[in-house]
């Protein structure tokens, strides 16, 4: 009461004192500049400067939106040219992909099959290893072990994929050929295996985040019932973190589908409609690389075909990313 009373009287007295000044200001503008201007002018300058800066910062932030729209626009625009010559039915149902041959066929299925096969091999490696690693990091590892292990995983993420391509082609493939002598030099198996190791850190870190978000009280409840660490991890923490773990898998699929250099180097460049990982086959990304390496004239059908392939790739990864985020957000258990 008293505070507001004092406040009101203060405001009143200030207004009263300012009144003559304000009258002068409204009657003769020239007086503003001479009497109260330096301060006001400075404030005005600051205000304008602040707004300009905010606008510039906003433009920078908008570049993210611009990039997304540019990607979609470019892919759609060039694909539109492609689909003028090629029917959608042929594109999605054709079993041959030979856009650069005399006898051209435009069925995307072989490339999609190659992409899915390498991704599945990669997941077969990364899902078990990544999940076990995540459980270990979150439930078993001491603070010190975690402090050492996590940076190493991060370093592994930072290794350029072209180096993994070399590794797959000239180290893993010869090794596998000792076990299966019939394995061709370019095969999806070794590319997939190496890609799997590449995405282990990714699954491990996302799944570990989900597990560590499970409240301590649930673990304590489980321990209090006499459960061991292993039982707690398997029966309490993992079920509680399922949504996060599944999201990690889905995001990993998206990563595997978009991976380029390992498959371009080691899986071969021949479109091949097969799900057998011991054969060589081109993926969508490998096809784009292969075409871009040659010198294709702008606006030719071959040039447009890499944008159509890119559009399919973009749609696949975007779909997986969206599903992954929805799973993580929507089905997150609330405790």
């Amino acid at each position, binding site marked *: 009461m008293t505070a507001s009373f004092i406040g009101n009287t203060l405001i009143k007295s200030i207004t009263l004192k300012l009144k003559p000044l304000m009258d002068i200001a409204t009657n003769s503008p020239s007086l503003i500049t001479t009497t109260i201007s330096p301060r006001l002018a400075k404030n005005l300058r600051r205000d304008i*400067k*602040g707004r300009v800066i*905010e606008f*510039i*910062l*906003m433009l*920078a932030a908008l*570049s*993210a*939106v611009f*990039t997304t729209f*540019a*990607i979609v626009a*470019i*892919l759609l625009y060039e694909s539109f040219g492609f689909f003028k010559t090629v029917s959608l039915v042929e594109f999605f149902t054709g079993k041959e992909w030979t856009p650069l041959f005399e006898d051209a066929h435009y069925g995307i299925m072989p490339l999609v099959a190659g992409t899915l096969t390498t991704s599945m091999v990669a997941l077969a490696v990364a899902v078990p*290893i990544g999940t076990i*690693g995540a*459980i*270990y990091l979150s439930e*078993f590892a001491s603070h010190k*072990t975690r402090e050492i292990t996590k*940076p190493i995983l991060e*370093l*592994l993420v*930072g*290794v*350029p*994929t*072209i*180096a*993994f391509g070399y*590794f797959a082609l*000239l*180290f893993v493939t010869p090794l596998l050929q000792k076990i299966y002598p019939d394995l061709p030099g370019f095969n999806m198996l070794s590319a997939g295996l190496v890609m799997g*190791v590449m995405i*282990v850190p990714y699954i491990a870190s996302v799944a570990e985040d989900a597990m560590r978000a499970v409240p301590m009280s649930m673990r304590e409840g489980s321990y209090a019932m006499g459960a*061991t*660490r292993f039982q707690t991890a398997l029966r309490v923490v993992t079920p509680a973190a399922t949504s996060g773990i599944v999201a990690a898998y889905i*995001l990993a699929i998206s*990563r595997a*589908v*978009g*991976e*380029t*250099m390992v498959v*371009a*180097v080691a899986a071969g460049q021949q479109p091949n409609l097969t799900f057998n990982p011991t054969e060589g086959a081109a993926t969508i990304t490998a096809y*784009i*690389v292969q075409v*871009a*390496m040659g010198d294709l004239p*702008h606006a030719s059908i071959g040039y447009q075909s*890499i*944008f159509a392939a*890119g559009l399919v*790739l*973009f749609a696949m*990864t*975007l779909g997986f*990313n969206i599903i992954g985020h929805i799973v993580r957000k929507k089905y997150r258990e609330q405790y």
Partner: protein
Amino acid sequence: MQASTTPAKASVLSNLNAVRTMIRRHKRNDIIFASIGLIALMLALLTLVTLFVDLVLDGYPKFNLTFFSDFPSRRAGSAGLLSAWVGSLLVMIVTFLTAVPMGVAAGLYLEEYAPKNWFSDLIEINVSNLAGVPSIIYGLLALGLFVYGLDLGQSILTAGLTLGLLILPIVIVSTREAVRGIPVAIREAAYAVGATKWQVVSDHVVKYSQGGILTGVIIGMSRAIGETAPIITIGALTFIAFLPPSPITDVAPYLNFEWLSASFTVLPIQMFNWLSRPEHAFHINAAATGAIIILVTLLMNGTAIWLRYKIRKNIKW
């Protein structure tokens, strides 16, 4: 009496033994799983070590100074990396100048300025979406937009801008995380002595989050150095046996921007080029290049991780 207690005692004892064996079994399971977990994680480390050792052993004959001062050549023995490492350096300059100002500005806007409305949500969704877009798609964007749309050609400028866009989400996210770590009290103190919003942001928020931002920038740049797919996609896989014009000249104004539009090659492209040849001699060059790229990226990432560790240790608000 004796007869009735003995069986009971025995059953208690046998139960106790059963419980004990169960506990022992469970503890053993714990240890078994812990070792499996450690092995699973070590597998990642083992791969990294094997990969690096393999590259170093394969590329060993090429580790000498002439490898860095020779141009690529048709003959594997005399082929070198000169145009590739110069190209990488110049592309990185463009990438740095694009991604860092834009990424930091965008991060500051989203953390400090953006109102909570659909517009800010739109920007945020786009940033997190862009982080998941495969790098080769950025290559297609660059091919359609920069190479043909804006007619920049297959130049250093195109490559730098492409990689700049590619690492933009990394810089934005790390800037936001660094800025978020600064307590509100710091901002309030600055406001209390009459600072404007921009003064608060530029003199305090940015200053105190420099380390965190730098960490993100280093990680982003190391990603850009090793990135191959987008640069192949813009069509830069060519035989380059010359250097771009020097950025610094001896006549005023001492700066020359012709290099921006020069054609180029970079380290990972040169490696891919050698790797895709059938002759084994070129694979040796590829291995040596790969070892160098990995060394550079490991050093950069290591610095970033060390920096982050130090910041976390030293700064207690």
